[in-house]
């Protein structure tokens, strides 16, 4: 099922952005000012994109990611686009999250009770951060189905509790819902990125 109002998909190369926005000599994502500069550069890209947008934030070329940078580039970025008064309607998927990136990202997300969709080192898609088991189960179901129509949600064997969990996934921006329409897995919206 193709979304009617498909979000604009952006690919954000974090390492490249760090080199361009901070200093060409910095090859690692360390220190809070570096993280802040990268986050602001991401926000600047988002400001030029359409709405809604879905960004593939790519850590593939990042070797070192410290906790301060993870806080800025992942947690603060998500937190900024989470509330109703967010600057823009934006969704995020994190790619190229290596084994050694996972802990900083997990820690900073948990500290703010946030969650994010991430493609980790083995290529698997995971939810990082604070997530309940039932959220993981429903999120996987949406990922596998790629999309869930309102009919399939209501008549597709989903219990009432599941609908409540889906509501949480929507409000946590871990899945995308068209207005009054179907749900889509975020990765489904990335297209060819």
């Amino acid at each position, binding site marked *: 099922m193709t979304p009617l109002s498909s979000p604009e998909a952006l690919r954000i190369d974090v390492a490249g952005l760090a080199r361009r926005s901070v*200093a060409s*000599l*910095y*090859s*690692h994502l*360390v*220190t*809070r*000012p*570096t993280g802040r500069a990268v986050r602001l550069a991401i926000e600047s890209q988002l400001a030029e994109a359409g709405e809604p947008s879905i960004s593939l934030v790519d850590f593939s070329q990042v*070797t*070192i*990611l*410290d*906790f*301060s940078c993870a*806080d800025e580039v992942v*947690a603060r970025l998500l937190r900024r686009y989470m509330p109703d008064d967010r600057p823009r309607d934006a969704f995020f998927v994190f790619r190229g999250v290596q*084994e*050694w990136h996972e802990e*900083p990202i997990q*820690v*900073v997300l948990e*500290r*703010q009770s946030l969650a994010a969709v991430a493609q980790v080192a083995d290529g698997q898609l995971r939810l990082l951060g604070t997530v309940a088991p039932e959220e993981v189960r429903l999120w996987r179901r949406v990922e596998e189905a790629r999309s869930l129509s309102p009919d399939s949600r209501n008549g597709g064997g989903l219990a009432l509790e599941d609908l409540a969990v889906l509501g949480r996934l929507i409000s946590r921006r871990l899945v995308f819902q068209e207005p009054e329409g179907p749900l889509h897995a975020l990765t489904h919206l990335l297209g060819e990125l």
Partner: protein
Amino acid sequence: MNVVPLPSSLDYRTVDEVLDAAVQAPEGRVLLDGRHVRWVDPNGMVGLLSAGQFLRGRTGVPPRFQMPEHPEVPGYMARMGFFQAAEGILETGQPPSRRGGGESAVLLEITPISTNADVHEVVDRVQSTAGSILSETLRYPLSAVVQFSVILSEVCQNILEHAEAPGWVAAQAYNWQKRLGRHVLVIAVSDLGRGFRGSLAPEHSARFGDRWGDATALEAAFIHGLTRFPDSHRGQGIQQIRKQVRRWEGSISIRSGTARIADVPEWDDSPPLREGLEPFPGAQIHIILPGRVPETGS
């Protein structure tokens, strides 16, 4: 001239004595007498710079450093970048050649930290030197170089974000065959800034009332993760450093002012909290990471 004799082993166990002696030294020019120093580690060297900086700030004149007589120690200190870092802080006389003191590789020579660019430089530098030491000497997994870099980054940022003053970092690996039967990696960080009490006071001192002091400030930051920033999501650095150091069965201790707090592993006999030290400014952090014990059997 007031003479402060330096201990023969100038390392993480004795450096607090040197800092205390610097505070206690009478007014007037000081001689830091290193003639009998036979062993020095990064904590000793960075501590010596801190003592020198403190004394120079008090008198306006750099204290004199009497070079160790041991044939290998001055050369080793030179290779760790001690004499370069000491320029303007200590009067050392003619520095020895960097080629003396054996041929062991320097992991991270004494590096001043005053900007974020310095932290990037430290992380870049250890990428090329730490990998083989961590994996071959300490038997850590290959990915440990990443966690080690993150520790260094966070510990250096602690200087920039909390001390509001420059500091130094240094690291080196040693064979502690007699003491522990293993190699260890020693990291030393020191600054002469506001210290933990000064950094946390505006935000947290009121709730501690009369109990507020160096030890309570250290406990607040080290154990409870409090930070000077009102944003409750910050202050993860020290907690994450502690977690990683514990995983590697290492020790970490922080002195600030009159107290030193520590996570003490089984192999160490240091107390978890010391109070009643002399009020030395800033913060001094020691981290010791022991090598992994090789698995026995087939």
